């Protein structure tokens, strides 16, 4: 059971991380954040949030590991194939009407969503006119996204997902297998800019036709969600698309009015025109 002291210490820890390292976790959904910080306390052998605060303030080497507890990295290529099928069948025809495209994978983690979209755009003939932006707050995750190397044992699932998403090619066309790993073709990311970007402290950086941000907002409270969604609203062109995770919704957001449901079942929204 959390005591009042725990709550005070937790708040101070998050303030310390913000002031020392400029990462703002104060608006993360607390139920899950508390669980992950409890695991972090165990890992760092700290009996309290205050002890963890002392460690992270005085030892910058602690931060990367702590970030891996504070952010959740779970993804797969073409996760929720129905989402990518809806992008392919319903969104791509709109995107084909633009001479050039900018696509943002917000909270790209280790890159699975980016490579999924890059493959889909290549299959649909859109790749050459597209610039991708893949952003995350976790530098280690970004490095892994840029490397594009995944465990070979995950490939059967990725392959199945790709087929179910309506893939027009074989996933094996896009990677080479070596030493237990699948190394994805670097030409898939030649049109991608990888960048450190926070949905809660950074601002608009481009005018976009599509933003895909899946299972990132679930870790935010409603305030942080509204901040991120207003960023998405301000960076999408009128009629631009926003894709969320399978159980994420604009229903509870202040920004709901700026968007209309485009594909209800797969949580794809369209920015209303001005």
């Amino acid at each position, binding site marked *: *059971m*959390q005591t009042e002291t725990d709550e005070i210490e937790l708040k101070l820890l998050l303030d310390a991380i913000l002031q020392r390292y400029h990462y703002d976790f104060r608006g993360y*959904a*607390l*139920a*899950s954040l508390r*669980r*992950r910080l409890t695991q972090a306390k165990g890992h760092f052998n700290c009996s309290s949030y205050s002890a963890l605060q002392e460690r992270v303030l005085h030892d910058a080497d602690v931060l990367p590991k702590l970030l891996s507890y504070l952010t*959740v990295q*779970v993804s797969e290529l073409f996760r929720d194939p129905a989402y990518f099928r809806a992008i392919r069948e319903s969104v791509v025809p709109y995107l084909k009407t633009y001479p050039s495209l900018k696509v943002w994978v917000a909270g790209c983690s280790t890159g699975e969503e980016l490579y999924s979209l890059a493959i889909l755009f290549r299959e649909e003939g859109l790749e050459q006119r597209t610039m991708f932006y893949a952003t995350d707050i976790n530098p280690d995750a970004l490095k892994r996204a840029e490397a594009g190397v995944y465990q070979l044992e995950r490939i059967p699932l990725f392959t199945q997902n790709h087929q179910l998403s309506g893939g027009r090619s074989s996933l094996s066309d896009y990677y080479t297998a070596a030493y237990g790993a699948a190394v994805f073709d670097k030409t898939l990311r030649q049109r991608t800019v990888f960048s450190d970007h926070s949905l809660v402290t950074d601002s608009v950086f481009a005018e976009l036709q599509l933003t895909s941000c899946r*299972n990132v*907002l*679930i*870790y935010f*409270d*409603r305030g942080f*969600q509204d901040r991120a969604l207003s960023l998405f609203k301000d960076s999408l062109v009128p009629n631009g698309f926003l894709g969320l*995770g*399978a*159980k*994420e*919704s604009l*229903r*509870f957001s202040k920004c709901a009015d700026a968007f209309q449901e485009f594909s209800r079942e797969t949580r794809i929204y369209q920015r209303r025109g001005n």
Partner: protein
Amino acid sequence: MESPPRAVVIGASAGAIEALSAILPALPADFGRAILIVVHLPPDRKSILAEIFADKCRLQVREADDKEPILANSVYFAPPDYHMLVETDHYLSLSNEEPVHYSRPSIDILFTTAAEAFKSDLIGVILSGANQDGAEGLRAIENAGGVVLVQQPEQASSSVMPRAALARCRSARALTLDGIASALCELAAG
């Protein structure tokens, strides 16, 4: 200010549909509490639990979205491949954290976060299942002063989960499914 909702949390695994079918349809439309349910599900398939029970129940039944407000007289199922957590200001959050007891959603995660949020004003129920998930969470509810109910193991189609829960919680009452349904109605009315 609106008073916070009161809640029931239910966890089940193998044998869940049969057990829930004896409980949920028996509850009245003005039951008065919210019901939050984790059933262990295969991660890669759409769940039809909400649809099945929406037709059978007088309560509103839905699969939870992230940041869903918790409302009385509504039943919320955790979606496949997400943990469902209760925030202290009484809405639901979802998460893709690591599975617990090989399960996502995990009963322990729902129950422990619900105990934090609802304190003693919570009823926890463990039904049929073939895994230990839920015992720890039921213990958290008991420690917070909530009421804990368990399906009688000999009546459950899979008794591992009820037995594990009874072993952890001294104050747990082992009841038949009908007994659980009437206990819920009495507790909710009281």
